[in-house]
């Protein structure tokens, strides 16, 4: 299979291959079969287009309008004004953007390396390795909303564990989730608790696909564990690193539930996703603003989605 695919040059003969294949099977399908197949592919495609792609592109269109949401005829085209206002006079925008960026950097610098480190430790013949893996992975099955609840048991000012421990040392209680200087970091620790396991599992899968002969060769050449990892294993993890980067970016943009259950995403916990939601179901509903912020999120995520799909579908060619 792989040989025949690579054997075909990417130039002229390439389009010939699918046609031939298509014709070959097309001959054997009856008319009824073709209707069945068309429906099988067509219906889900229609659902996906109607409920995912049309709304996504409508966000872009609506970002150039002013609309109160009552009746389609009240939509007013106002060009770039929403963007101009968001960048100049909309107070929560820059904090939200900044918090999303901190979220991303924190995820890349803290839980991701920890996940990789744990994966490297666990990817060997080791007693109980499955048990360790499951325990560290367990938080991944919890929703971020529940993660917010569970960590409130730690952080809450008068009923939280951390302040109870601090009180034993005579320290004054700290408002972990209310203080805008602190709460983002408190939330990031809670979110990382869940992210580490996810990263660990992805890296474990990646490490399995690294050829063990490479590691053996490095060991024979007298490389230390660290050298073997740095110069042999890590470069071989390139494909999974791209997946990890994309997933981390997308997860950082999606972050919503956790801050929303804690304080509705205000007072130090503003995020782009929260602003979009507030502009629909919040008190100040401005559809144009919400759509413009969604469009900004779309632009950022598109870059990484393209990287991801290119990566995956190019692999397939090989």
């Amino acid at each position, binding site marked *: 299979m792989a040989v025949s695919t690579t054997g075909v040059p990417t130039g002229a003969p390439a389009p010939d291959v*699918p*046609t031939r294949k298509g014709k070959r*099977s097309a001959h054997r*399908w009856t008319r*009824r079969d073709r209707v*069945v*197949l068309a429906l*099988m*592919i067509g219906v*889900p*495609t229609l*659902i*996906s*287009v109607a409920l*995912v792609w*049309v*709304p*996504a592109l*409508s*966000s872009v269109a609506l970002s150039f309008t002013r609309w109160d949401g009552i009746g389609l005829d009240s939509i007013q085209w106002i060009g770039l004004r929403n963007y101009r206002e968001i960048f100049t006079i909309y107070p929560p925008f820059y904090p939200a953007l900044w918090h999303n960026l901190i979220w991303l950097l924190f995820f890349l610098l803290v839980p991701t390396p920890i996940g990789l480190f744990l994966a490297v430790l666990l990817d060997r013949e080791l007693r*109980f390795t499955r*048990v*360790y893996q*499951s325990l560290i992975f*367990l938080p991944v*099955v919890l*929703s971020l*909303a*529940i993660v917010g*609840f*569970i960590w409130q*048991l*730690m952080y809450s000012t008068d009923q*939280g*564990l951390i302040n*109870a421990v601090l*009180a034993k040392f005579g320290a004054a209680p700290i408002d972990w989730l209310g203080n805008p200087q602190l709460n983002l970091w408190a939330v990031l620790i809670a979110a990382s608790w869940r992210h580490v396991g996810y990263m660990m599992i*992805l890296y*474990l*899968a990646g490490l399995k696909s690294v050829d063990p002969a490479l590691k053996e060769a490095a060991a024979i050449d007298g490389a230390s564990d660290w050298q073997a990892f740095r110069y042999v294993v890590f470069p071989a993890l390139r494909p999974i690193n791209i*997946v990890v980067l994309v*997933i981390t970016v997308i997860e950082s943009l999606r972050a*919503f539930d956790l801050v929303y*259950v804690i304080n509705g995403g205000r007072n130090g916990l503003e995020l782009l996703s929260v602003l979009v*939601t507030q*502009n*629909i*179901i919040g008190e100040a509903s401005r*559809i144009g603003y*919400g*759509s413009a*912020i*969604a*469009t900004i999120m779309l632009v950022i*995520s598109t870059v990484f*989605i393209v990287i*991801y*799909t290119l990566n*995956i*579908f190019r692999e397939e060619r090989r």
Partner: protein
Amino acid sequence: MTAVQTPRQAEQGSARVERRRRPVTRGRILLHVFLVITSLVFLFPLLYAVYTSLRPYAETAKYGYFSLPRALTFANYAHAWQQSRVLHFLVNTLIIVVPSLLLILLLSSFVAFGLARFGVRGGKWLLIMFTAGNLLPQQILLTPLYQAYRLWDDQNWVVEHQAFIYDTYWGVIAIHVAFQIGFCTFVLTNYMQTLPHELTEAALVDGAGAWRQYWTITMPLCRPPLAALATLEFTWIYNDFLWALVLMNTGDKRPITSALNNLRGEFFTDNNLLAAGSVIIVLPTVLVFVLLQKQFVGGLTLGANKG
């Protein structure tokens, strides 16, 4: 067979014993100590939630939350269960999860079958469209979707003042299905491509139509990825917070995860009750994970790693 394998197994066994015995050194022990501590650190927030949930509020109020137990009781659970009508919200969740799950697996296997077993022109682009759609942050679709749902109902096309999409289970199910078929189509297409073509060729010769090839030949072979996807999707839809929050208006109709916020305000008034409530809500997903762990992890890495 066994005669051939036995010596080899014995050899492997001894090799493994040797390999294992050799590293029972300080390094190995330190590694285990480190991993035990790390596992406990990761487990700690959950263990602490369980511990707090078992303590009477009066006791924690008197001695503080950082203290040894005097009495342990299930009273908080009984309290949380009765007062907040957890069962009612869990049923709401089931009403959403079950149809969503079935529709997602059915529709995505349709597309996967069409793309993998039947050379469709532009099939690769279709697959890219499905895969990319699943990666979009949900907020990008949120505003137009919300408006479309509301406008649709305002049209009063069928019955006056009757909600058809907005604030209904079908509305939430529809977006779950649309959003999640992307991921499942991707996984299933890749899996079906690895199935030998001879299987369906033989069926073709026997005169089996497209539907029979799909239902009686391909689908039974796809049990492993279907099981993995069902496990993953159950957890994801159970955990959904955003869609039901925005696309449903009546608090009473919301599934458990989205209902959390109101529950805390109204019923989970102290941290002991909050802990009990959290443990109850977490239980189904933890149970699914413990029972079907292999499926869960397998599905997750299948999607990300692409085999």
